[in-house]
């Protein structure tokens, strides 16, 4: 459905050296983030394996968004380490994470309100004309960006938009979310992170996002999905990371846990057992 060679999908730096076969793509250890007196993250771990969808669940304020912001460079953790493909990284900003192939759909969508859809899709990675006009005069290639945007939106079938020139602020909440998802799906080359990507979507659109998540996984790109929607989680996730009070209290293969058990762990109604934490 998504055409990786053409369109907005850049020549992805697919680092799939054969010896990395079993190495996790992303490993975070002891991430801590404090805001004044609030401890948003309290030494949390996270492991993302190759070829999996990892769901991150937890109560409001459990630190899910803060955790993925550390992984996407939007927040710099006070303590802890992050490894990508076994190499230590220190993201100083979102660009660093993006350069490492990590794309993120933020809970509070990072969409520029007054800009049109193509401008938003390409914000921060604009295409420039070929030749001197591009590298010398920094001339934008708007035609290519528009054409690619149309192609991408058509191929994803994620959202029906009347005009590509519509400013993002005039789109519906669901349409905006569609753009953020499309952007991550198109550009993510190593990891795609989605923080509640279906929160504002209708049934049909949610379905499409879930299909898209599975499709991204089939392309060989692991996905981290944050969601409060348990049926969605149990449908697409291979493993479930349960976050509570700023820590990972359990990480369980979806097949080994039931929905009520997961909810009980998440809310603190039951304590994790010995088999519950595994990387």
């Amino acid at each position, binding site marked *: 459905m998504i055409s990786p060679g053409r369109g907005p999908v850049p020549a992805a730096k697919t680092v799939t050296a054969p010896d990395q076969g079993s190495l996790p793509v992303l490993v975070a250890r002891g991430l801590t983030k404090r805001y004044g007196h609030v401890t948003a993250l309290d030494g949390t771990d996270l492991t993302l394996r190759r070829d999996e969808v990892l769901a991150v669940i937890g109560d409001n304020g459990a630190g899910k968004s803060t955790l993925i912001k550390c992984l996407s460079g939007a927040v710099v953790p006070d303590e802890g380490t992050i490894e990508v493909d076994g190499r230590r990284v220190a993201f100083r900003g979102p660009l660093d994470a993006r350069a490492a192939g990590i794309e993120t759909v933020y809970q509070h969508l990072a969409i*520029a309100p007054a800009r049109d859809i193509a401008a938003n899709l390409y914000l921060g990675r604009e295409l420039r004309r070929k030749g001197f006009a591009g590298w010398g005069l920094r001339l934008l290639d708007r035609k290519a960006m528009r054409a690619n945007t149309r192609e991408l939106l058509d191929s994803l079938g994620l959202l029906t938009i*009347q005009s590509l020139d519509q400013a993002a602020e005039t789109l519906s909440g669901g349409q905006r979310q569609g753009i953020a998802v499309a952007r991550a799906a198109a550009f993510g080359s190593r990891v795609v992170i989605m923080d509640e990507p279906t929160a504002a979507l209708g049934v049909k659109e949610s379905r499409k996002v879930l299909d898209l998540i599975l499709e991204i996984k089939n392309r060989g790109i692991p996905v981290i999905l944050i969601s409060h929607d348990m049926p969605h989680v149990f449908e697409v996730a291979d493993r479930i990371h349960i976050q509570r009070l700023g820590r990972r209290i359990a990480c369980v293969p979806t097949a080994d846990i039931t929905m009520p058990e997961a909810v009980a762990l998440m809310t603190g109604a039951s304590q994790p057992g010995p088999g519950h934490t595994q990387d």
Partner: protein
Amino acid sequence: MTAPADQLAPAASGVREVRSVRLPGGRREPLALFMARVALPLLLLVLLVVFSLLRPATFFTLDNLGTVLTLQAVLGVLALGLLLPLIVGELDLSVAANLGLGVILVTGLTSQQRLPLVVAIVVAAVVCTLVGVVNGLLVTKVGINSFIVTIGMSTVIGGLVSAYTQGNVFYDGIPPALVTIGQGRLLGVPLPVVYAVVLAIVVWYVLSHTPVGRYLYAIGGSREAARLSGVPVRGLTLAAFAGAGLLAGVAGIVQAGILGSGNPTVGPPLLLPAYAAAFLGATAIQPGVFNVWGTIIAVVTIQVGTTGLALVGAPFWIEPVFTGLALILAVATARYLRGEAL
């Protein structure tokens, strides 16, 4: 209450029927939005025609046109610079005082310190840019509201200018070359107009045809969204202030050449006209967006209006009344038209 089915249909499909026009290139846009785009240029056209008919002998002469445009070229350059902080969502209230600083530096350094003109020009441009950099640092690093920072900066500059000039006007020893910069002509076109047009093209190119332009607008739309998309928000905000400072300095140097003297009072009164131009300009061409050609058209329209009114014998107080009313009316009209269009 029931509505006929044919009235419900468009709403049900999510499409509101609006009259639309076809733009060059085949795109369509709502008529109201198109009207908003062209309202100010049309007003300019109407003013030109009316005044030419009323005063055929004086208004539409090349000489008069040259005067009209020269008077506004300095304001145009100042407003171009002001656009940059406005686009990133910041205010710069120090641009006009900064222009005045440029005037005083280039005239004072040549006439009092006897520095070569080139050196004086470079020093003036650098100092005015640094003023912008300091504004930018205080806003982005220290985190002070730009309104406060630039009011403070404006006041400080005013004080320093007074200290340097001791209230005097520099008349003697102004290099003739500086006067040429301000009063010369290129193929009959006054040089200040040439500078304004060239700078307008440069700023327009950067704003609408390069990634940096998109980043500036994105920052103004949502700082956080821009940051998360990898836009260097702080650096570009700083650069916007620096650009405003540089263009204020350039405007000051040109103003010094036009006047042929260094008067400490010339800068500050340009503050409100520059804001009027930027906001009036944001009603035209790309309504709702600070943009270069709208700003330029606004500057020219205000001047044509006030010059024309003077030529037909309107009393002196008509000028500020005209400018103020034009601003409020244009913004109100654009809002109304856009509200209908969106």
